[in-house]
Structure formats: structure tokens, C-alpha cells
């Protein structure tokens, strides 16, 4: 192979870039991480929060895959909670408030401990093909680096400008310059770009908040972590209770770890009036911002326009860290002029005196139009060039980190000349995310929801390790010890399941008491423990109390066991669905298939297929604009092609016809 400076270059050190760089480096690549500002590594430009439904699932998946985000969050969160506890095992999800500054610092430390990884500050301005299958990245300062693979994680920085009211600036986020010239380099490579937009609320000084008029929202009072530690000690927080900023009225602290509450306030009719009177001054509402914004995270302007009958909206004040008095005003996303933002805040009783530390604004930036990447996150037709994070039209730190991990792995596999890794929809939320990016067309920043996963009951956060750790272990991204712990958990679950099927529970006094304590009737007949566990309201701990397992279950096993026994019927249903679809997934389509030469495809389908170039019939079937008739034709054609290649005769007479 030709001389090259690195095996892999990652452009951008946000949540995608960090995961990408570390995954590539750990897989043996000499890796360069290039960022415009080394003091903004893994920076939370918007919400200082990680997790929530689907997003929290992704973070757990990263924990099983050897990603950085889970551990980094566990060391720096100022609050953690489990959401949806009463809504079922599939949608339970962790969410944490992270200390923004610590998160960034701690991630930098982690990167600096990585062998084969170089950090470098510099603005990438060009990207070209070098000789002998290399890529060359050049910085504004004139440094040139070559590598086999390049991963672009440009976030909101590509040709970005930020806006609030009449004010505009060329910036990727307030305080940092945009990547002004890289867009042209991408267009020169044939990539099609579109504009997207997102927004961030003002930050305010906690000293100016009337804490008597807020409703505190507390964190969990039992230990919760994103990371998977099994028998090991969970990581300690980087800050202790003593370091908490004195401005916060600490009326409550969880026993297991220092946490800060968030504070709920509500907007009112006055807030609505202020917004309505000033709508023309918001670049979002006035249509000055060209990008498409996210519907699930609308600006306050959009909320007022779309839901005029709602007088009250919830606003959460979230501390940006233990030691800072800055509060993130969650829910008040706005690009109103500064003076209007102040008026809006002051209309809320607890915020009458609120002082803005940083105004809210919207940012508009270039992304690569959907349909140009492969399931490996490599750009179609440009081997060695990978994209991850917001450049693919997504939003969210978790979505970015997931793509970063996958792009890092695939860049390393590419550099080593190996087949790419593709994650399936029935295997992980990351698979759902990437498959959606490949097969669907997006007009707004893409965010994961649990409802995007058709096999939600299989993709739980409690079984992320069982689903994905073997894969990460094969790659070499998790240790043997970690893998052994996962396998111990798996074995314990299977053994206990088998025991519960055989164990007969008799309706004696002990059982009657335990059930009565939960308001449940006792069974009339003896029944297998597994069957009793399927009763609504009967937890595994009740069964374990009646008849403990021969040896205590390893951490996390009981939770998964309970879900798998309780919801066995539904899980089996989903598995049967998966099996049905898998057969289509296993039918490959040649990359060079000439869709114009296939008779019978409708024009819309033909164009879509030619653009996306799906790898399997299953993927083709999920494309918008491709209907079942098209799929049948495709299937028929792929099969006949396969046969022709094998050189078989296609027609044989037989006696029946």
C-alpha cells in the first residue's frame, strides 16, 4: 500500500467523531481526529441531556459495543432517571442530565489515553482523492494529511449560519466558526447537499430564578447507569456533593450519588401573546431560515402557530452542570430577537427577573441528501469516504454517537480490506437508524423513536448486551472478561427459565400471603412457576422468594428473565415476523444492476432503486416508492440473474405440464 500519514482521518470531534476515532483506533488504525476547537470535544451544543426512549436504548447498545458515550455519561451525570417504568419493558429508557463541561473534558481525557489516536486542531477545508486509493484532507492552516479512509462528522458546521431575530452570523454554533469551504469539496465529489435547521433555547443564570415558584423534578433514588458493569464497581462521579454550586436549593439528594433536580415551570397566555406579536421577527416563523426544522423539537414560535388553543406549555430548567449556575431552558427553543426572548422568559412567574446568559438561536447547515450512503455509512461510489452524525440528516447526540461507532468500525474494516459490518433492524436500534437513513427520504432532521422499530419488543435496553456483545467481541472492541460476564448472564437466564418451567408452585399459605400482599388472588391448582410469572402483577422476585434459584442470578439477569417469560408470546410473534423478513434480506441484489433494463418496474420505483442501489431485496422493499409488485419483479429478476451466472439452463420440460 502507498505511503500514507494515517489509516483513518476523522473530521469533527463531536459525539460521532469521538466514537468513530476511538473505534477505528482500537481496531488497529493509526487515526487522526481533526477538530476546529480542541476545547469543544464531545460538546453538548444544545440540551445537556442523554437518553430517553430509543435514544437511551442506543446508548445501552453502545455500552455493549464498547462505545464511549455510556461510561462518559455515567461519570458525569448530575441526574439520572428511568422513564416509562409503567409502560412496558420495550420502552423503558434511561435519561441523564450530564455536566456539559465535565462531559467534554472527560471525553478529551479518554481520547488522549487511546493508543494510535492523534488529536489535532484545524479547520478542514478540502477533501480530495490522493494517489493509490488514499484520501487527502487539507486544513485552513495548510496542513495536509492522507489516509485510506476519511470519516466526516461535521455536525451543524457545514456552511452554517446562526440566526436570532434580525441578527445573523456565520457560525457552526455560537462562538465557533463554520466549515465554510468543505461543502464545495463535497459537491465536487458529486454529493448532493440540502439545508436543514435546528434551534436551541436561551440559557439563563440560576441566580435570577425564583426557586419558590418551580416544581423540582428529581432523579432516581436507586443506582442506575448506562454502562454495563456486572460484577465490577460502577464508576464514581467526577464531582461530589461539596462541589455543587451554592445557588441550587438542595432540598433532596439521593443516597447513592449526588444529583441535582431539574425544575418545571409553565408558559402562559402572556407568553403566547408576546410570541404572536413578534412572529414576523423570527427567522423560523418568517421563513427566512431555509432549512427544514424538526417537528418533534419545534421552536416555541412553531408551537404557538400550530397549537394556538394551548395556552400552557411545559418548560424545564436544566442545570448545565454541578458547578455552573447556567440553566438550559428546555422547551423554549426560539430564534426570536434577544429582547423578545427576555420578554418571553419574564412572562413566566418564576423567571420574572431571569437574566439571559446566552440567547437562543437557530442554526442552518448543509447535510448530505438522503439516499447517497450505504448501510456501512460509506458514500456510494466513493470507497473509503464515510459519513456519520448530523451530516446524514440526523439529530441527537445518541444518534450521532451510534453512527460514529459504526463508521469507525467500517472505516477500519475498509482500511484492512475487510467486508463491512451491517447491523440489522431486528438486531439493534442502530440498525433501524442506519437502515432508515439508507432507505427513507428525510425532509427534516431524523430522530429515533421507539415506534420506528418494528421489533420493539426484541430491542430492549435490558438485552442490549445479549444482542450485541458477541458482535463487538468478535471485532475486538470489548474485553474477554466483559464477554464472559455477558455469557454468564445469558446462561443464568436460560437455566433459570428452564427451572421455572419445571418448578411447580403449590397454592399454600405462603403463596397466598405473597399474592394477597399485591392484591392478587391465589391460584386454585398447583401450577408451573413460569406460568405464575406470566400473571399480571407477579414479579420474578415473588417467585424467587418462594423458591430461590440454586445460585444468585448475576446482575441484570432477573430483569431480562422476567421480561422474556412474561412476554414470551409476544416476543415469539415478533421473532416469527423477523424470520419471515430475513429470507428477503438474504437475497442480494448486484450493485451494478441496470434497473432500466428490467421490464415491468414502474418509473418511480426504477428511479428510486437506481438512486439508492439497495444491497438486498429486503432493503429494496423498504424503499419509499417501491411497491410489492416491483419487489416481485425484482425478486424474479435477481433470481434469474443468479441462475444465469451459475450457467444453468433455465427451462426444463417436466412430465406434469
Amino acid at each position, binding site marked *: 500500500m502507498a505511503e500514507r500519514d494515517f489509516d483513518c482521518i476523522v473530521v469533527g470531534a463531536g459525539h460521532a467523531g469521538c466514537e468513530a476515532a476511538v473505534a477505528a483506533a482500537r481496531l488497529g488504525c493509526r487515526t487522526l481526529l481533526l477538530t476546529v476547537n480542541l476545547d469543544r470535544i464531545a460538546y453538548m451544543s444544545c440540551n445537556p441531556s442523554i437518553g430517553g426512549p430509543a435514544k437511551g436504548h442506543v446508548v445501552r447498545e453502545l455500552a455493549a459495543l464498547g462505545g464511549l458515550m455510556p461510561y462518559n455519561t455515567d461519570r458525569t451525570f448530575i441526574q439520572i432517571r428511568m422513564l416509562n417504568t409503567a409502560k412496558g419493558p420495550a420502552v423503558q429508557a434511561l435519561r441523564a442530565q450530564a455536566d456539559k463541561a465535565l462531559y467534554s473534558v472527560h471525553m478529551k481525557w479518554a481520547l488522549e489515553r487511546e493508543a494510535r489516536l492523534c488529536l489535532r486542531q484545524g479547520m478542514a477545508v478540502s477533501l480530495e482523492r490522493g494517489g493509490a486509493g488514499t484520501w487527502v484532507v487539507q486544513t485552513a492552516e495548510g496542513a495536509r494529511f492522507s489516509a485510506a479512509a476519511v470519516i466526516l462528522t461535521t455536525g451543524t458546521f457545514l456552511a452554517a449560519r446562526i440566526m436570532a431575530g434580525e441578527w445573523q452570523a456565520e457560525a457552526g454554533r455560537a462562538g465557533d466558526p463554520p466549515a465554510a469551504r468543505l461543502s464545495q469539496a463535497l459537491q465536487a465529489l458529486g454529493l448532493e447537499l440540502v439545508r436543514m435547521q435546528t434551534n436551541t433555547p436561551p440559557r439563563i443564570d440560576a441566580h435570577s430564578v425564583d426557586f419558590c415558584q418551580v416544581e423540582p423534578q428529581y432523579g432516581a433514588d436507586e443506582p442506575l447507569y448506562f454502562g454495563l458493569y456486572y460484577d465490577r464497581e460502577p464508576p464514581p462521579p467526577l464531582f461530589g456533593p461539596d462541589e455543587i454550586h451554592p445557588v441550587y436549593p438542595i432540598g433532596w439528594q439521593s443516597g447513592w450519588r449526588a444529583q441535582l433536580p431539574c425544575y418545571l415551570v409553565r408558559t402562559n397566555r402572556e407568553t403566547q401573546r408576546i410570541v404572536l406579536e413578534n412572529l414576523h421577527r423570527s427567522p423560523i416563523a418568517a421563513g427566512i431560515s431555509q432549512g427544514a426544522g424538526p417537528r418533534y423539537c*419545534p421552536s416555541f414560535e412553531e*408551537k404557538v402557530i400550530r397549537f394556538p388553543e394551548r395556552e400552557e406549555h411545559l418548560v424545564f430548567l436544566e442545570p448545565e452542570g454541578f458547578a455552573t449556575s447556567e440553566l438550559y431552558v428546555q422547551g423554549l427553543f426560539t430564534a426570536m430577537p434577544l429582547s423578545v426572548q427576555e420578554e418571553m422568559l419574564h412572562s413566566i412567574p418564576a423567571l420574572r427577573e431571569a437574566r439571559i446568559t446566552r440567547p437562543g438561536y437557530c442554526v442552518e447547515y448543509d447535510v448530505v441528501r438522503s439516499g447517497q450512503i450505504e448501510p456501512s455509512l460509506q458514500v456510494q461510489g466513493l470507497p473509503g469516504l464515510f459519513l456519520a452524525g448530523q451530516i446524514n440528516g440526523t439529530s441527537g447526540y445518541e444518534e450521532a454517537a451510534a453512527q460514529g461507532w459504526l463508521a469507525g468500525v467500517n472505516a477500519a474494516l475498509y482500511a484492512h480490506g475487510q467486508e463491512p459490518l451491517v447491523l440489522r433492524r431486528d438486531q439493534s436500534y442502530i440498525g433501524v437508524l442506519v437502515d432508515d437513513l439508507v432507505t427513507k427520504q428525510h425532509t427534516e432532521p431524523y430522530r429515533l423513536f*421507539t415506534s*420506528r422499530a418494528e421489533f420493539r419488543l426484541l430491542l430492549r435496553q435490558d438485552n442490549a448486551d445479549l444482542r450485541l456483545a458477541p458482535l463487538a467481541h468478535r471485532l475486538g472492541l470489548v474485553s474477554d472478561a466483559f464477554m464472559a460476564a455477558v455469557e454468564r448472564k445469558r446462561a443464568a437466564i436460560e437455566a433459570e427459565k428452564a427451572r421455572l418451567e419445571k418448578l411447580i408452585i403449590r397454592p399454600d399459605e405462603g403463596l397466598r400471603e405473597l399474592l394477597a400482599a399485591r392484591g392478587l388472588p391465589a391460584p386454585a391448582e398447583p401450577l408451573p412457576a413460569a406460568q405464575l410469572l406470566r400473571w399480571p402483577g407477579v414479579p420474578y422476585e415473588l417467585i424467587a422468594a418462594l423458591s430461590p434459584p440454586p445460585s444468585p442470578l448475576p446482575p441484570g439477569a432477573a430483569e431480562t428473565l422476567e421480561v422474556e417469560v412474561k412476554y414470551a408470546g*409476544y416476543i415469539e410473534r415478533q421473532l416469527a415476523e423477523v424470520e419471515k423478513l430475513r429470507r428477503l434480506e438474504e437475497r442480494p441484489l448486484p450493485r451494478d444492476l441496470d434497473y432500466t433494463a428490467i421490464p415491468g418496474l414502474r418509473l418511480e420505483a426504477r428511479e428510486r432503486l437506481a438512486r439508492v442501489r439497495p444491497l438486498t431485496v429486503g432493503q429494496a422493499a423498504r424503499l419509499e416508492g417501491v411497491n410489492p409488485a416491483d419487489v416481485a419483479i425484482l425478486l424474479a429478476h435477481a433470481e434469474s440473474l443468479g441462475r444465469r451466472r451459475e450457467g444453468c439452463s433455465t427451462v426444463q420440460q417436466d*412430465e406434469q405440464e
Partner: protein
Amino acid sequence: MLTPLDDTIAAISTPLGKGAIGIVRLSGPQALAIAESVFRPKRGALRRRKRQLCYGWAVDPESGELIDEVLAVFMPAPCTFTRQDVVEIHGHGGPYVLQRILAACLRSGARMARPGEMTLRAFVNGRIDLAQAEAIRDLVEARGEAARRQALAQLEGRLSARVRACRQRLLQCLAEVEASLDFPEDVELDQGRTIEQLGAALQELQALLRSAESGILTREGVRVAIVGRPNVGKSSLLNALLGEERAIVTPVPGTTRDTIEECVNISGVTFVLTDTAGLTEEPADLAETIGVERARAALARCHVALAVFDASEPLREQDAAVAQEVARAPRMLAVLNKCDLPVVTENPPLDSCPVIRVSAKTGAGIDALREALVQAAFSTDAEIGQEAAITSERQKMAVERALKSLAEGLELLRAGLPLDVVALCLQQTCQALGEITGETATEDILELVFSSFCLGK
């Protein structure tokens, strides 16, 4: 919405309509197993008599009820039309019988073949040449089916509008459930209202399923059993309705030893008329005993029972027995025959059912009987063609599946089980209904979530 190639499909492979025989074809790895649950050979086993016609019965695998006397043939892969295991069941050519055999196959695990799907498999598996791709394309694009459906387009248009409305209601519920799962801090589910909405949708689907009866009747024929004690003129009545001498008519009681099945078109609806042996308590011989049993079987599976009485004679005990048996039929008509003779019996021994006075001999009253038959067949739903109705077994099964998962979801919700499982049931419901209207759900739901809720986080 996808087309797997390795499951087992079933279809009626002969043209719809009346023919001497009709063929239901199964293709796929489970073809033999499914055929064995539907086909009961007189002797031997289907699997051991490859490529030989096997005589026996098509039976309903659930009730064990005999559907038709048939021939079946098992052709193992690869030397078949589709290069998969194929079983053909050759039944009598009435659409109703064939539909029942097909339905039995579907219930035993086959999937209804899409139009042209057998041919598609033949092509994919190399049985026919690529040169025939054009023809296949036409088939897959369902032009044949479109033509076939033309006549029913009006009905089906109304049906899908009704299904769509119901599905929309369910999607709205699902959107609310999903929103509460994905945005727990923004959206609180109004459980009571959701239960109410789901309950309404459940009722709507149940009504839809009831309409399946009249819809499928329109399409596949209304089964009419002509029953009565011996010699009240059942066969004459059949002949009069057919307008031809089909059944042998003699003045000797018990002339009809076996059931006779014939189709007749009345007001555009196919009626499958079954003439039966007279119901008698004391059959003269074994043949008559079997005849009576078959008459009872015909009565058990008919949509309308025509109870025939002799107006020229006083009622006998046997007439009362007939009346009792007929009362179990879903719908019934009392026919006082032989009104050309001096009338002795004015009223049949049946309450609250329409009475038609006819003379099979002169044809008097036969038109009124025809009209009464149409009315009786569609009395549960509104007029034929007026109401949106399910017209095919495929649609009916989709609604049945939708109904089953909806009922389950509702039950789980009422029992306070987690919402993610409730959502799973609702997704399956919407998916099943989407098969009728041709829509898929994921994006629809997100669209609804975004338009219905103000979301912040």
C-alpha cells in the same frame, strides 16, 4: 406487503364460475402437509401416491365437516409447474365449493396466492423462461385481478372507505399510545378515552365482519337447502326455480335419495340450491338413511333453509319435526307447495318467518319465492350492493385477524398491562386492515403524532 417465495400458497386455479370441475392448487414446502389436513383419502395416503389421482373427501379441518367429494394429486418438487411441492385438489366446479376448499387450505396454514403468484414462482424457480417476463409483469401488476374485480369495484370501493375510516380511528389511538411512549414528558395517555375509541372500532369491525356474510354471499353464492318431509314437492320446486327438469320427480315418496346441488342466478346473485332427501323418522333402507343424514348436513351449512310443506294435505307429525330442524338454520322461508290443488293447510308450523304460497307444477308464486330468497339471504345487512361489504375470503381473514388483535389489545389495556404490548396488538390490527386498503403504518403514525401533539423534548 412483501412477496416471499418459500412459503406455501393456495389459489383456485380454474376460472371462477360454474364448471364440471374446479381445481384448488397448493404450492410450497407445506403443500403436502396442508393438503393432508384438508383432504381425506378414501384409502391409502396422499404422500405415498405421488402423481396419482387419489379419491376422497375435502373436509373442513376444524369441524371435520365434509366439503366435497374430490380427487387430489400430490406432485413432489422439482418436477412441477412451480418447481415446489404442488398438490391439486379437484372438486366440483361450483364457486362456493371451491372457495370453501380454498378457505380450508388457508386456515390450515397456506397463504392466499396473489394474482399471478404461481406463475411468478414458476418463473423464479426456472420453470418458465425469462422471455415470459412481460406476461408475468402483467399478472403481477394484477391487471387480471383488476378486470375480475371490476364488477365488484363499487362494493369494494365502499368497503375500503369503511375500512380506511376504521383504520384511521385506530391509527389515531395508536398515535396517542406511541406518543405517550416516545414523549413520556409531553404526552399523558387518556386511557379511558382510548378504551372507548378502541371499543367503538371493535364494534365497527364486528359489523364489517357480519357484512362479510352478505358480501361473500354475493360473490360466492347463497346456499339454500330445500328440506321437508318426503313428497311435499321439493324436487319439483328445485326444477321450478331452475326452470329445467334437473331432479327426477315421481309421485313416489322418497324418490330423491341423495342431495342434488344446482346453481341459479337470481337478481345477479348466485344461489346454490340443494335438493335433499325427505326428512323422515323412519327411513326405509340404508340409502334413505344416508340421504336423510346428508339432508341434515345440507341444512347445517346452508344460509337459507326453504322448508317445504304440502298445502293440499293436513300437516303431519313429520312436518312439525321438519319445522323443528329448520329452526336452527340462520334464515328460513316456509313454502306452501301444491297451491294449485284445493288448499287444506293455510299456515305452516313455523312462526315468524315469511310464508310463500307456490305451485311448483304451474309456476305460480315462483317469482315471489325468488324475491323472498334474495331478501332472506341479505336480511342481516342492508340491501345487496347498498352497503359496503367484504366480498372475499382474503378480506374476511384480514378483518378477522384485525378483530382478534384489537380485542386482545383492548383486553390488555383494560387489564392494565403495559402499553408497549398494547401498541403491538394495535400495530397488528392496523397492519391487517392495511392489507385491505394497501397502506403501511409507520410513517402514518409519526405523521399523526407530530400533527396531534405539541412536543418539546
